[in-house]
């Protein structure tokens, strides 16, 4: 037996989940796709006394469109995003990023909301949630609240979630009409966690002037980061290669990466600047096609 003993619960409704979490508090962990939690349990780095498996809560298994948002339920798997025609039409950036998450067998089980709640700073979804100004719908004993992605992530693997709360769904705005987007990441091997990842989108007016944009990075700080200063430098300007190069050069100023076994902080800064430059170029090419 690999994991330490635990009491297993398999509730059928969100109300049952919330009442279990309310009763068990910090002794419980939620099990969705299990692609991050179960490795930690097999290593006994995580030893929850209670496991609340939400896989039988069928009401959470959705990707739907609502008021110009994609609403992604807590049991929507990465592969469902990857093959969703709705997501393809409304926000292809999510699909491009999803294809770079782990491997097919991981994506068959792993969930979007699980990745958000896990809050790995190198993961794709926190950066996507930030760049799209997504909000998380969270339910706990005190009721439901909507948390903007910008308030959700606090530090490494740490969010503002109370142990008694469940992420029920995430609401991701669709890309603005005519927007171009791109997700690029650099990792040692395909499917590994990114050393650095960049999510960008751009819109322009009829004369080619940047109307609006978003840039977020993964793997470069304790949480995913929105590069607000770089965005301000793009808005109102003509989207040229030289502007992209200039903006990309300023990107490392907004980051606080650490060195580890896989890459030095300095290397991460350089890679961040370069992939933002490339992603902006690709996003520009894709503008007007959606």
């Amino acid at each position: 037996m690999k994991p330490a003993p635990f009491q297993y619960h398999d509730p059928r409704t969100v109300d049952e989940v919330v009442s279990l979490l309310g009763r068990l508090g910090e002794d419980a962990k939620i099990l969705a796709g299990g692609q991050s939690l179960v490795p930690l349990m097999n290593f006994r780095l995580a030893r929850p006394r209670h496991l609340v498996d939400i896989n039988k809560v069928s009401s959470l298994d959705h990707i739907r469109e609502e008021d110009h948002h994609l609403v992604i339920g807590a049991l929507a798997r990465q592969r469902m995003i990857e093959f969703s025609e709705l997501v393809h039409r409304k926000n292809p950036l999510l699909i491009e990023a999803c294809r770079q998450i782990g491997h097919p067998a991981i994506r068959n089980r792993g969930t979007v909301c699980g990745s958000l709640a896990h809050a790995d700073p190198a993961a794709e979804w926190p950066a996507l949630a930030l760049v799209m100004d997504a909000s998380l719908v969270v339910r706990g004993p005190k009721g439901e609240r909507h948390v903007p992605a910008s308030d959700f992530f606090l530090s490494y693997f740490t969010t503002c979630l109370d142990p008694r709360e469940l992420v029920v769904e995430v609401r991701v705005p669709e890309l603005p009409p005519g927007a171009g987007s791109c997700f690029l990441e650099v990792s040692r091997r395909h499917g590994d966690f990114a050393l650095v990842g960049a999510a960008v989108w751009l819109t322009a007016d009829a004369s080619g002037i940047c109307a609006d944009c978003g840039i977020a990075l993964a793997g470069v700080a304790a949480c995913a980061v929105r590069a607000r200063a770089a965005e301000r430098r793009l808005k109102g300007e003509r989207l040229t290669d030289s502007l992209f190069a200039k903006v990309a050069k300023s990107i490392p100023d907004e980051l606080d990466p650490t060195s580890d076994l896989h890459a030095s902080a300095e290397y991460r800064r350089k890679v961040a600047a370069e992939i933002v430059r490339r992603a902006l170029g690709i996003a520009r090419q894709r503008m007007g096609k959606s």
Partner: protein
Amino acid sequence: MDERRICLKVNGKQYDEMAETRMTLVDFLREKLGLTGTHIGCEHGVCGACTVLLNGTAVRSCLMFAVQAEQGEIATVESLAEGGELHPLQKAFCEHHALQCGFCTPGFLMTACAFLQENHAPSVDEIRLAISGNLCRCTGYESIIKAIAAASRVMQHQGMRAPYRTYPISTK
């Protein structure tokens, strides 16, 4: 001790066993059901050796608890050969020397099996991507890629021979 009764179908056969809820699916298959074809490698989802099909899709059986497969249908490497005849993937692995020690092979076969159900005529690059989550320390992968490409051609001619049942991937 937290135990549950687990009813599930493996390779078309119904099983009904008691197991601790903390038992992973791969340990359940090997220790409770005696199906030792599925190998245990890293036990944290990195090596792909334990890949099986759950309701037609490839999953890491070290990252699931057996209790989660309750009422599910599992296909393991033991489902591939039929009546003593090897599956086209297995034949191709033999013909192209796509294994040496064989430890990773069950995982590669089941990964390739799920992949060829989605993509009937894959390119070499697509095959590389599909098996990027499976580690092999012997072959250097080239022979595995050739074997999967060869099997895909054979399977196109013979028609798909899925392990026992396939499910479409949900696209809602």
